[in-house]
């Protein structure tokens, strides 16, 4: 009799636990769903709106100001027959991203052509539909690729740039990468602020928008861009890509996939390197291997905002890792590089 009376409360408490768990799970799921919708709206807004905006990248106690313009225009389809050309139109995105301080660094985009104007190189274009600037390109694309490695959490509302903003956190599923916090405009869905945060909540780098204007028509600068002749598109020969290398990286955080591997010379140091690039949808990791004059050099590292550069020499071979990852991850990657003795010179 006594045992029965004991069992009943236990069963009840289990039931209660289960019910409350259900409630909390559904609440979390609703948050995640809300966050994903917000991110999808951001992606759509970044591709479809005409906006004229300025932002500042704050890192290393310094601020880099940028001006960013985006617009969508319709152009007649070129490779159609004459009868169809009048009616058939294609939407083309126009984009300008300019660094405002120091030497000119402009990125221009017309549709699937992106041009880089930088002091280090002669102007060049590549065939791509995304510009590679301080804001991760994935936010303007399909954000569902991030779902395998990150959780989306809708946190709360606040005021940013004088507007009502929704805070969305992109939380990594493991300890090997950083989190991203986004403040999104409730009216337009566009980004107002972006921060890169460690697992312990330390701010590493942030992008604060300082001006945002959404217009019906294209701005003057974009109209000019439309008629500007862009630099020649450089052909990346397939031969130099996916080169068979004498080494491999045996550990990477889950979800990182090889984007390319090649041999090239670094522009500034003229050092010949063997190179691999990995990406998890949001973060890029570069791994470099090259012979060194030093016999041994202990691990050295430095950071540029959230970007970590780590470098060590073992047995006259220098291995370096660059990317927006925590130190522990970079060390693990460097130590996981193994060499194929048959192919090594």
């Amino acid at each position: 009799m006594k045992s029965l009376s004991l069992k009943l409360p236990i069963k009840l408490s289990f039931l209660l636990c289960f019910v409350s768990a259900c409630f909390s799970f559904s609440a979390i799921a609703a948050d995640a769903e809300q966050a994903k919708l917000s991110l999808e709206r951001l992606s759509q807004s970044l591709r479809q709106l005409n906006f004229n905006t300025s932002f500042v990248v704050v890192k290393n106690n310094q601020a880099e100001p940028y001006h960013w313009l985006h617009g969508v225009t319709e152009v007649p389809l070129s490779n159609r027959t004459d009868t169809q050309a009048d009616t058939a139109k294609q939407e083309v995105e126009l984009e300008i991203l300019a660094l405002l301080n120091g030497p000119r660094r402009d990125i221009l985009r017309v549709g699937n052509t992106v041009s880089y104007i930088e002091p280090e190189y002669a102007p060049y274009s590549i065939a791509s539909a995304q510009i590679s600037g301080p804001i991760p390109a994935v936010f303007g694309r399909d954000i569902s690729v991030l779902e395998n490695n990150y959780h989306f959490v809708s946190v709360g509302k606040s005021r940013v740039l004088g507007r009502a903003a929704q805070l969305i956190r992109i939380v990594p599923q493991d300890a090997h990468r950083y989190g991203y916090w986004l403040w999104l405009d409730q009216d337009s869905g566009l980004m107002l602020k972006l921060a890169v945060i460690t697992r312990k909540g330390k701010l590493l780098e942030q992008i604060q928008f300082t001006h945002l204007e959404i217009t019906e028509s294209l701005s003057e600068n974009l109209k000019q861009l439309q008629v500007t002749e862009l630099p020649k598109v450089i052909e990346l020969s397939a031969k130099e890509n996916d080169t068979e290398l004498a080494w491999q990286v045996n550990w990477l955080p889950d979800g990182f996939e090889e984007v390319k591997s090649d041999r090239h010379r670094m522009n500034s140091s003229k050092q010949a390197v063997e190179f691999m690039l990995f990406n998890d949808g949001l973060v890029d990791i570069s791994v470099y291997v090259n012979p060194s004059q030093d016999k041994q050099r202990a691990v050295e590292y430095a950071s540029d905002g959230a970007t970590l550069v780590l470098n060590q020499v073992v047995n006259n071979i220098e291995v370096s890792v660059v990317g927006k990852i925590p130190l522990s991850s970079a060390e693990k990657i460097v130590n996981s590089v193994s060499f194929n003795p048959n192919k090594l010179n």
Partner: protein
Amino acid sequence: MSESKFETISSLVDNYRVAEQSSEQVIDDMLKDEHLSAAWQQYHLIGDVIRDEIPQILQLDLSAQIAEAIADEPSILAPKTLTKVNDPQSGFKAKVVQLIKPVGQLAIAASAAGLMIIGVQQNTADTNEIITPSQIVQTKPLAGFANPVSFNYQQNDHSRTQSHQATALEQRIAQQHRFQALLSDHQQQVKLSAAKSAQSKDAKQSLLEKDGEIVNN
């Protein structure tokens, strides 16, 4: 007279001033007369009890306790600091520092203008615990910042010779060059990879098509 004084105190406790002069007079008297100040205290206590505002533990004579505590407190004398004029050792140190610093700074300015380094060389032994490194490398050394050379070089070990310092500096500068080269190349490769990914998709598609042909054949 005394009665009216107590009455005035009572009205003061109730936050009600009777007449300017008499109330001020009573306050002055209260400060002198122990009897009157005790009445002030008691009236407050009565008021608290009536309003049910008394604390759980009653400290009836708090003021006396505080006065005692102050009396017990050792008095602290703060003498004026004298500036030491004749200290041969400190003068010598200052000279050494003066000598070392300009040399170091000149060498840096000459060879590493444009580099901005914050932080001191990290000790590799205790790196495992640190999440964010102490060193910061400037990506764009020629970007025209207001104060490009801000190098806080401090050599704690005075026994080290000048040449040692020079080599250490050279190593540091070489290290910064390496980091900068890696950072800019990383950014470059990320830019180029955007084009590559589009191509590889095409390549994969064409490969798939070829496979399909083979299967069809």
